[in-house]
Each structure stands twice: as C-alpha cells, then as structure tokens.
C-alpha cells in the first residue's frame, strides 16, 4: 500500500486544506503536510531492492474489466528518484511561496497537492489508461496555477500550455487504444497493462513512415517531446515559465518536464525498440539542436527568467541526447540529468523569485553590483550557477559528462556539437551573473527609497537543502545511481526485447538461500 498512499495522500491533503477554516494557518498546514508526504515517500527505501530489475512494491487490481484496465502501480530504479524529486521539491516550493503568493492561498495549495498526486501517479502508473488519466490530470492544476497567480500575459501562456500539451497527448490516447486491441489480438484478452504492451511484437518496416510501429512510436513520441520540450515544439515553455509564479516555474521545470523524458524511457524506447533505433538520429539531432539553439537564445535574453527558461530547453536537449544514445552512460546520465535539472533549475527559479519579490523586475540591465548589497544571496546564486553550467564537483557535471560520454560512444558527430553547448552554457550563465552581480550598481540596486535586504532565515532554509543536494549529487553520484543501475542496465541490454517482471516481496530471499546452498 506504500505507493498508493504516496500517490493519494496529497489528494487527501488537498481536501483537508479545502475545508480548513483558518486562512492564516494554511501555509503552515501545507508545509507540514508536504513534509509528511516526503517522509512517507522516504519509506520506499525500506522495501526497495536496488539489485532487482523488475517492478517492485506492485499494487494491482482490476479497474475496468471490460477493457482490461487495471489499477496498477509499481516502482523501479527509473521512477524511484523522480518520485523522490517530486516529494522533495514540494515542501521547498511551499516554503518558497510563503510571501510571493498572497491571494487565494487556499486555492493555491489545493492546486499544489492535486498536482503532486497527478505527477506522482504519472511516474508510478503501470497501466496505460491509468497513466493517461494522471498525465492529463496534471494539466488542470498547472493551468490554474499559471492562469491565476501568474504574470501579465498569464492567460495567453496558460492556454497555450494547455492546448499544446493536450494536442500532443490525444494522439497518444488513440495509440494506446490501438495497442489495447493489439494485446487482444495477441493474447485474446484485451489489456492496457504496460507489461502486456512490452510483450507485443509490433511489425516494423524501415525506410517508410507508414509502418505500424513507426506510427505508434511517433504518436507517443510527440506527446512526450512536447512535454520535454524538444526543439521545434518547445515554444510553450518560455511563455509558461516567464508568466508562471515562482512555485509554478519550479514545479514546471523541476518535475513536469521530466514527465516527458520519463515517458521516453518508460514507454517509447522499450515499447518500440526498432523504431526508436531507426529514428534515433532524429531525436539526437533534435536534442543537439535544442542544446545549441536553447543556449544561443538564452544568451540574448534581457529577462533573467526567460534566460533560465531557454537554458531549460538546452538542458533538456542533453537528456534527450543521452536517452537516444542507448547505452548505460547515456541513459544513466540522462536519468541523472533529469534530477540535476530539477534541483538546479528549480533553485534558479526560486532565487529569481526571491529577487523579484524585492525589486519587481527581472530585467538584467536594471541590475548590476548586486554582490556588494546582497552577499548571501550572491553566494547561493553562484553555487547554483556553477551547478547549472556543470562545473566539476557539482551535480550538473556528473550528468552532462555521462551523457557526452554515452553520446560519443553512440555517435561522435553529435557529441562534437553537443560539447559546444557546455561552453555556451557557461557563456550565458556567467555573462548574466557578471551583469547582475558585478560592475556598476544598476538603477534598482542603488535605489535608495527601496533598500534591498539580504536573505532571511526562511529563504536560507529554502535554499540550503538545494545546495546540499547539489554537492551531494556532485560528489557521491553512486549514492543515487546505485539504486537505478540495475534498471538502467537491464533497459540498455534488453532494449529490443524488454520485459519487466514483477518482483515479489519474498523473492529476493529465496535466491539468496539458493546461493548459499
């Protein structure tokens, strides 16, 4: 019951907050509840077996028997860290929004918890329709978050976000239904279970677009590519990021984008191995173009939040590149980079939110010389900047290094181009850092009517866990990767014939006993 409680506790919390009578204690309540949720999610470790390749802690019930749709949840090394990332970021986001969200506090926290349920469900659902329900549900609270608490062009941004994502995913729904019929043909019993989907042998013909596996592949890939967002369909992201309130940006960059890359790892690559292999060049190309394009566009942004938004496009390009390298370095690096990006970009958005609360501007040109006025803020910002440009000892380095290594093995040409992204990343981040923190004091910084105050205890409490994670993940990547290694190796080695098994709770002990005999 662990996974069910992890997924549905936030929904319960949302209800509790909705009926909570006292407006002035909602924030405290929400923070406490999200911490409880985090602790509950940590209890996964007690039962999680890092050496197993299959699905663990499985919960499986028939939901809609007529179509073989199940209430089916399971966790493995791929989804484990994404679940923890979600539960880790939520209390931080709630604490960070303490002063920035001032109206409709109740509604905001209700949205937050519903969103958490939807995201966790997306990572844990192992039944196609069950997954789709969570996938689409996640749009609704995010839509309200951007639309109600966002900036000036929030309505345009939120409607664009919603329609873009929805447009991508409806074709996936058709593909899912089609695959349900394929399972019926293959086994006589219709099923929407992902494990049954894995067993399908879908005919593939290279060289043409109109072969069954290719079409299904693109129906899924489009949905996930929009969510990632991959290069040509990324345009909703800068709008949504810039207009979203700080907590919205953090959750969007931190977790929601990962739903797309997770989709590639969990659904696209193992379900359509031949098609992914055949079209890998396309996605590596998209990834590489995204890296360079995102970096170049980020460089010229006058708005610091937009700069970070485009840096997301660049970073997500790395992840896509790593996943389609199809080797242990690329995939492992891709997964690791998902977590890194969640931490470092999330932290960047929080930092930008903090300075925005003080000055109500995000124009880089209006800043300058901030380092002398806000020393603590500067230190935090610098550490996160380093993490974002992947300096060794920070988390970003590990992820990018693995991805580039994997890409080089798979296709050196893409690696040559992708490496330039590392340089460009340093360029736009450091240049922005220089313009904001050093040099002559900008008009906002020397404004004597509004003296700037350095970070208070609450804000430091928000940032410290992030900084700890930056170094922890940078110095001891194995603490994290060891849990995912078995699953990723299994995916890499059995890609063309992927088959997840369900690990029974007692099964591990049996093999140990046999080993002793």
């Amino acid at each position, binding site marked *: 019951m662990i996974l069910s409680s992890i997924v549905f506790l936030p929904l319960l919390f949302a209800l509790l907050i909705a009926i909570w009578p006292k407006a002035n204690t909602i924030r405290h309540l929400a923070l406490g509840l999200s911490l409880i949720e985090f602790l509950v999610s940590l209890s996964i470790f007690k039962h999680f077996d890092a050496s197993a390749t299959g699905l663990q802690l499985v919960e499986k019930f028939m939901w*809609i028997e007529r179509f073989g749709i199940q209430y089916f949840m399971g966790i493995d090394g791929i989804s484990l860290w994404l679940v923890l990332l979600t539960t880790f970021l939520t209390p931080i986001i709630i604490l960070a929004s303490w002063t920035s969200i001032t109206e409709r506090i109740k509604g905001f926290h209700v949205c937050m918890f519903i969103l958490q349920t939807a995201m966790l469900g997306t990572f844990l659902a192992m039944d196609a329709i069950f997954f789709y329900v969570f996938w689409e*549900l996640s749009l609704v609270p995010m839509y309200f978050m951007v639309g109600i608490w966002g900036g000036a062009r929030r309505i345009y941004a939120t409607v664009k976000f919603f329609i873009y994502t929805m447009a991508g995913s409806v074709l996936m729904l058709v593909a899912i239904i089609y695959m349900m019929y394929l399972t019926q043909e293959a086994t006589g019993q219709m099923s929407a279970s992902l494990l049954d989907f894995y067993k399908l042998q879908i005919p593939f013909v290279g060289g043409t677009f109109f072969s069954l596996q290719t079409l299904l592949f693109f129906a899924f890939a489009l949905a996930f590519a929009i969510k990632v967002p991959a290069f040509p369909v990324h345009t909703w992201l800068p709008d949504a990021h810039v207009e979203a309130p700080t907590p919205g940006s953090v959750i969007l960059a931190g977790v929601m984008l990962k739903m797309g890359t997770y989709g590639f790892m969990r659904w696209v690559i193992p379900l359509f191995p031949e098609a992914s292999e055949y079209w890998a060049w396309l996605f590596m190309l998209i990834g590489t173009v995204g890296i360079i394009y995102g970096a170049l566009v980020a460089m010229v942004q006058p708005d610091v939040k937009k700069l970070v938004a485009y840096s997301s496009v660049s970073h997500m390009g790395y992840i896509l590149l790593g996943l389609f390298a199809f080797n242990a370095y690329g995939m492992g690096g891709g997964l690791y980079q998902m977590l890194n990006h969640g931490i470092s970009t999330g932290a960047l958005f929080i930092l930008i939110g903090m300075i925005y609360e003080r000055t109500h501007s995000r124009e880089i040109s209006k800043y300058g010389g901030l380092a002398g006025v806000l020393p603590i803020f500067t230190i935090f910002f610098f550490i996160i900047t380093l993490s974002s440009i992947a300096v060794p000892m920070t988390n970003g380095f590990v992820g990018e290094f693995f991805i580039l290594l994997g890409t080089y093995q798979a296709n050196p040409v893409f690696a040559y181009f992708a490496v330039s992204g590392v340089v460009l990343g340093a360029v736009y981040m450091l240049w922005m850092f220089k313009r904001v923190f050093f040099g002559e004091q900008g008009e906002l910084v020397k404004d004597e009517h509004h003296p700037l105050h350095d970070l208070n205890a609450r804000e430091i409490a928000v940032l410290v866990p992030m900084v700890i994670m930056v170094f922890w993940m940078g110095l001891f990547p194995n603490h994290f990767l060891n849990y995912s290694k078995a699953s990723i190796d299994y995916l890499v080695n059995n890609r063309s014939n992927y088959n997840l098994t369900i690990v029974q709770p007692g099964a591990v002990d049996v093999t140990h006993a046999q080993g002793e005999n």
Partner: protein
Amino acid sequence: MNINIGLSDILLISPMIALFLASLLPITTKVLRGNREQHSLITLSQALIGIVVAVVLLVVFGGADKTAFNNGLIFDGVTQWMGIISLAAAGAAMVMMYENPATKGKQFSELIFLAMSSAIGMLILVSAVDLLMVFIGLEMMSLALYLMIAMSHEEKLSKEAALKYFVLGSFASALFLYGVAFIFGSTGGTNILSFMDNAAELVQTSRLFLFGVTFVILGFCFKVSIAPFHAWTPDVYQGAPTPHSAFMATAVKTVSFAAFLRIIATKSLTGSDHLFDILQWLAVITMIVGNTAAILQNNFKRMIAYSSVAHSGYLLVGIITAGVSDNGAFGASGVIFYLLAYGLMTLGAFAVASMIEKSENHIVNVDDLAGFAKQRPMLALCLTVFLLSLAGIPPTLGFFGKFYLFNAAIGEGLLWLAVWGVLNSVIGVYYYLRPIVVMYMKDGEAEIAGHSLNATTVTAVVMAVAIILMGFVSGPIFSAVEKSLL
C-alpha cells in the same frame, strides 16, 4: 384487421400512462380552482413523482426485448437506458424551469403539462420500432416543445426560436415521412423488424429502399443537429429559455439518437458504401463545424449550442460504429454511455447559466463572467467541472465517454474517425477553457442574479459530483449497459 390489446401491452406502456396521469394533475387542478395557479412547488413535485413512477415502471416491466401493440413498440435495453436518461434529464430540466425567471410563476401548470407530454413522446420514440410510431413519438415530443418555447416570458428571441424550430422541425419531419413512404413502397411495411434482416441486401438491390433509408436518416440528422443540418440549433438554444435549451440539448437529443440507433441497427450501412462514406464525412464535418464555430461565440448558451453540435458529431461516430460492426452492442452502448455523460455535463452547464440569469431578458455572455469565481465559488467550481468534462479531461465522466466511443470506433477499424474525434476535442479545449479563464483569471464584477436558486443549485452540485465519481466506476456502468443490449 382485428386489434387485440392484451394486459401485457398495457403493462409495457404503463410508464407512459403514469406520465400522462401525472401531467394531467396540475392542469386539472388549475381548471377546477377557477384558473388559479396552485403553488409551483406542488406542480413540480407532481411532475417529478410521475417521472419517478414512470422510471420504476420502465425498469420493472420493460426489458427482455418484449414487444407491444403488434410489434409497434419494443422494450429492450436501448429503450430502458435511453428512456431513463431522457426522463431524468427532463426531470432535471423541470427543476430548472421551476426557478428560472423566464419560465417560473404564471402558466407553470401548462408548462409542466407540455413538458410531460413531450416526455411521453420521448418514451414512444425510444421504444418505437414501427416507423409510423417513430413519427408519432417525434411529433408528440416536438409539438409540445414548440409551444413550451413560445410560452417563455421573454418577448422576442423565444418567439423567433419557437417559429424557427417549428418550421425546420416540420421540414425534418417531412423529410422523414418522405423516406418512410419510400420504405413502405419498396418493402410493403413500415416496421423496422420486418426488414431488419434483409436491409443490408435491400439497399443494394432496391434504389427506392436506399432512397427511403437515406431520407429517414437525414430526418434524424436534422433532429440531432448534424452539420450541415445544424443551423437551427444555435438560434433555438439561444432564444429558448435556458431550462428548455437544457431539455432539448439532453433529453430530446438522447431520444433522437435512440431512434437513430434503431434505424442504424438494420445494418443498412454495411450494404451501401456510399451511405457509409457520407455518414462518416458528416461526422467529421459536424465535429469541425461545431467546434470551430463555438470558438467564435461570446454568448454562453450559443457556445454550448455549438458544443452540442460538436458532440453530435462524436456521437455519430458511435452510431456509425454500431451500424457497421458485427457486435453492434459495443458501439451502441458507447453511444448510450456518452449520452449519459453528455446529458449530465450539458444539463449542469445550462443549470449554472440558468442561475446566473437575473431576468427573462438577461443574456449570459462569457466575458461578463469575470469575477464569478469570487462571488460564487461553489457554482464556478461546478461549471469548471462541467466544462472540463465536456472537454474530455480525465478523470471526469466526459473522458470515459469519449474513451468508450472511440475505443469502439478503433476496434471497428474506423481509426481515422477516432483521430478526427480526438483532434477535435483539442479544438474544443480552447473554448471550454474560455469561461474558466474569465471566471478565475480576470478581475471584475460579474452581473449575476442576486437571489439564490436552491433546487437548481442542488441539481448542479449533484451533477458535478456525479461526473467526478461516476468516472471511477464507469467500467461497471458501461458493462451493465452493454450486457443489457446483448
């Protein structure tokens, strides 16, 4: 010709008799009291009791493919489910009539009498298998409806709507009758059961029969507002009092689709590729026209009217699926389930509109809803649920409705219709989100009725809760529907 009416016939039509008796109560009381209106609440409860009794009788005596009146009426799963859905929708619409400014108060007994008569017509329509019986049901339902619309306290738009509906409705009936005449000419009978087994063959061998079936189908296309026969829908839904629009969009549409299913169940489509192609294109065109036109609307009721055109397009996909598949029950139950979902969400949306209306002349515009979420958080939340459900966002009932409908279509190989369907639902999202955007994200003071309409509020809340909760148990409901059709 000797006519025997046995006890079983009477028992089978007992729901209609119950409705008829209940419809007489208020109007008779009014006459006996010297043309003085009794309290509206009593009138309403008499009508609702009649409906409940009718539903119970329908469940108890109907079912198991029993036929009555010399095979004129059939009582099978379709009759029961569609009958229950339409009666429930009619009941909910009557609750709205009780409180809406355009319909409440004076002449309420007459209104309820007409609405109940219309409901009797509906029951005849869902159970009719003889085409002439279908015609009787259709006319009984429609004639009462024309009068109901014209009776509105509003002076101008409702009269126009009534006249327009009357003219176009009569035109549709004429088309239908024309088709029936051809069918009679080519087969020597008007009973669907009599040519059920060889219809697929007849459309190939007999031009006259094909002609007749086509006209009958076109007549229904008018009734359920399939583009390009949909032009009356927005005007009528806009001009009619809101409860009546709800009545038409849900109850009337449900029973019209039920009769449509009966014609389609003859498998004429499998015989004629042309007819099959035409209907597929009609479905695609209807979805596109309904959705794109709805984007341009600012009047809330007009927007829902176009959305109802689009939903007719989705439903037509289900009808086509039922018409060509060997296992028609799957497609048909998809249609029935979708009508259930669609009925709940459309009634809900109209109920909220009905509560916003200050007077009989009040026009509800989407742009005027700014600030509604702050003034009436509960209602705004309900409307959000209805709109998201109409847009087909999981886990609402609307999503599962679409899922079953398109699932059946894909299973039947109509993949391209399903793709058109889902792409259209993306277009739909755009205009369904607009009221939500305005309600929640724009500041303002919405011009809304100050008084609270209690029964209508309860109806809306119940429906919103049902839409969310029934989403989770949609599987068993769907299986129950499908089992009853086998």
